[in-house]
C-alpha cells in the first residue's frame, strides 16, 4: 500500500503541474464568467441556468482532464519507457496499475474540487444578485450532482487505465477511451429505444441486435446513471436508493476494470 501511495503521489504531482491544467482551468473560468454575464438575459429560471452551466463546466473540464492529462500520465510512461525505471523498483505490476489510477483520481479530485469552489462562488454571487429567481435551488442536490460528475470521470479514468494496458500507443488509448465515452453516454437511449415499441419495425434484425446491445449494456458503463444535472437544476429530490445504486455501480465497475487491467498488465512485455 505504501508503494501504491508513493507511485500515486508522483503521478498526482506530475499531473497537477502539467501546463494543460491551466488551460482547462481557464476554460472553466471562462464558462463561469460567461454564466455571470448571461444570467441577466434569462427571465425566471436563473437558478436552473446557473446550475446547468456550472455543472457542465465541471463535467467538460473533467472530461478534458481525464482524456488529455490522464491519458498522458498513463501512456507516456510506456511510450517513453519510464515504466522500465519504475518497474526496476520493487513495485509489482498490480501495484503499478492501482498507484497510477489512484494518482489520476487524486489529480482529478483536486482539480475538480478547486473548480467546484469557484463555481460555488459563482452560485453564491448570482444567488445574491437574483435572489428571487433561485426558488428551487438546493445545495445538497448541487453537491450531489457535482460529486457524480467526479464519479463519472473516475469511471472514465479506469477506462483510460484499462485501455493503456492493452495498447502501447497513447493516441489509440485516447481514441478507444473517447469511443467508450460516446457509447457510454448514448447507450441508454439505444437500450430504451430497443425496449420501446418502435424497434419492432426492424423485426428482421431485432433479435440478434437486441442481444448484442444487451451485452454491450453490461460491458460499457451507462454514464447516464451518473447524471444528476437535471435534478440539481430543478432542485428535485433524489432518493438514497438511486444514489446508492449509481455509486455502487460505478465503484464495482471501476474495481472490475482495474482487476482486469492488472491481469493484462502483468502478462505484458515492455521493450
Amino acid at each position, binding site marked *: 500500500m*505504501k*508503494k501504491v*501511495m*508513493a*507511485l500515486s*503521489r*508522483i503521478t498526482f*504531482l*506530475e499531473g497537477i*503541474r*502539467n501546463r494543460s491544467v491551466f488551460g482547462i482551468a481557464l476554460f472553466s473560468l471562462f464558462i463561469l464568467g460567461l454564466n455571470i454575464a448571461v444570467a441577466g438575459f434569462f427571465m425566471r429560471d436563473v437558478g436552473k441556468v446557473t446550475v446547468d452551466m456550472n455543472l457542465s463546466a465541471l463535467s467538460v473540464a473533467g472530461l478534458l482532464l481525464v482524456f488529455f492529462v490522464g491519458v498522458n500520465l498513463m501512456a507516456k510512461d510506456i511510450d*517513453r*519507457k*519510464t515504466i*522500465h*525505471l*519504475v*518497474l*526496476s*523498483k*520493487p*513495485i509489482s505490476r498490480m501495484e503499478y496499475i492501482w498507484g497510477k489510477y489512484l494518482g489520476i483520481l487524486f489529480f482529478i479530485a483536486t482539480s475538480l474540487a478547486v473548480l467546484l469552489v469557484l463555481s460555488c462562488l459563482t452560485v453564491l454571487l448570482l444567488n445574491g444578485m437574483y435572489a428571487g429567481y433561485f426558488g428551487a435551488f438546493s445545495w445538497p442536490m448541487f453537491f450531489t450532482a457535482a460529486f457524480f460528475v467526479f464519479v463519472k470521470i473516475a469511471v472514465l479514468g479506469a477506462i483510460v487505465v484499462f485501455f493503456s494496458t492493452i495498447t502501447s500507443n497513447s493516441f489509440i488509448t485516447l481514441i478507444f477511451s473517447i469511443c467508450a465515452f460516446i457509447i457510454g453516454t448514448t447507450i441508454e437511449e439505444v437500450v430504451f429505444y430497443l425496449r420501446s415499441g418502435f424497434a419492432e419495425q426492424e423485426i428482421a434484425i431485432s433479435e440478434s441486435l437486441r442481444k448484442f446491445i444487451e451485452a454491450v449494456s453490461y460491458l460499457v458503463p451507462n454514464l447516464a446513471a451518473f447524471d444528476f444535472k437535471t435534478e440539481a437544476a430543478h432542485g428535485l429530490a433524489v432518493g438514497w436508493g438511486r444514489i446508492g445504486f449509481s455509486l455502487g455501480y460505478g465503484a464495482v465497475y471501476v474495481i472490475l476494470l482495474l482487476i482486469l487491467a492488472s491481469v493484462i498488465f502483468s502478462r505484458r*512485455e*515492455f*521493450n
Partner: protein
Amino acid sequence: MIELKSLYKTYSPGLFKKKVPAVRGLSLEINHGDVIGLVGPNGAGKSTTIRMLLGLIRPDRGSISFRGVPLKDADIQYDIGYLPENPYLYDHLTLEELLAFSGRASGLSSAETKKRGGELMEKLAMTEARKRPLRTFSKGMLQRAGICFALLHDPSVVILDEPMSGLDPVGRKMVFDLVTDLKGQGKTIFFCSHILNDVERLCDRIGLMVGGRLLRVLKREDFAAHGEASLHLVVNRLGEQELSGLHPLLSDIAEESGRHVLSFPAKSLTAVSEQLHALNVEVLASRSDRLSLEEMFMQAVEENR
C-alpha cells in the same frame, strides 16, 4: 549469482510483419563482485538481455536464475539498481521527489532516503539541482539523476545500459569514477556500452554480442597488457632467416593479415631495434596492445556478417 541459460527471444513487431530474433542462445554467468561489460553494435540484443534480466520481458526459451532461485520467484528488484539508456524521468517532478519515491518504493525509511540521497547527489554534483523540475535538466544531468534513482537503495547488483552515451567528458569522468567506486565496494556491475575504451578500463570480463549471439567472453588477460610491460611492433611479413635472427629477443611473434606483430619486453627495446636495423626491416607501426579490443570487436562483427 546471476545465471542466464540459453536465452532466446524473438520480437513480433506486429501483424504481417517479419519476426525479429533479438537474442539467440545466450548463456552467461555473473558472479558476485564481477564487473561485466557487454559490447556489440546497435541491435545486437544487449538491451533485450538486460530487459529479460529485469523481468520486463520474458525469454521465449531458456532460464534466468538469481542466487539459484528462478527469476519470477526472486525479489530481484530489491538487489538491483537499473539505469536505462537515455532515461526519461518525469518532467514536472524534482530530483528530491523522485528520490523520495525511489526510497519509498524500495522500502527505505524517509531518514535513510534523505541520507543516502544527499550522499549520492553530493557525489554526482547534483545537490544544487535537487529542487529544480527534471524537465530543465541537461542530458548529462538526467543521466546522473537516473544514477541517483538507481543507486538510492544501495543495491548489490548494478545494471547500466549505455551509461556513458551522450555525456560530455566531465560527465563521463564522473560516471567512470562512480563505477570504479562501486567496483571498489565489491558490487556486481553489469553494463553494456559501445564506448569500448570505458569498457576496457572498467571490466573484468567482456562479452562480445553480435546479431543476438554472445560470440565470446574475454577475460581481462585477453585484452589488456599484464605482467611486465610489453611492446608490440608491426612489420612487413618476415622471411625465415630474419625471424630466426630476431627470435631470441622476442617473447611472441604473431601473424596478422600478411604482417607480423613482434612482441618483446620493454627492456630489450634497444637490442631489438639494433637487430631490426641490421636486418634492414622497416617498422610500420607500434601498438600498446597486440590486439586491441576494437580490433577484436571488428573482427567478431566481420566474422558474423
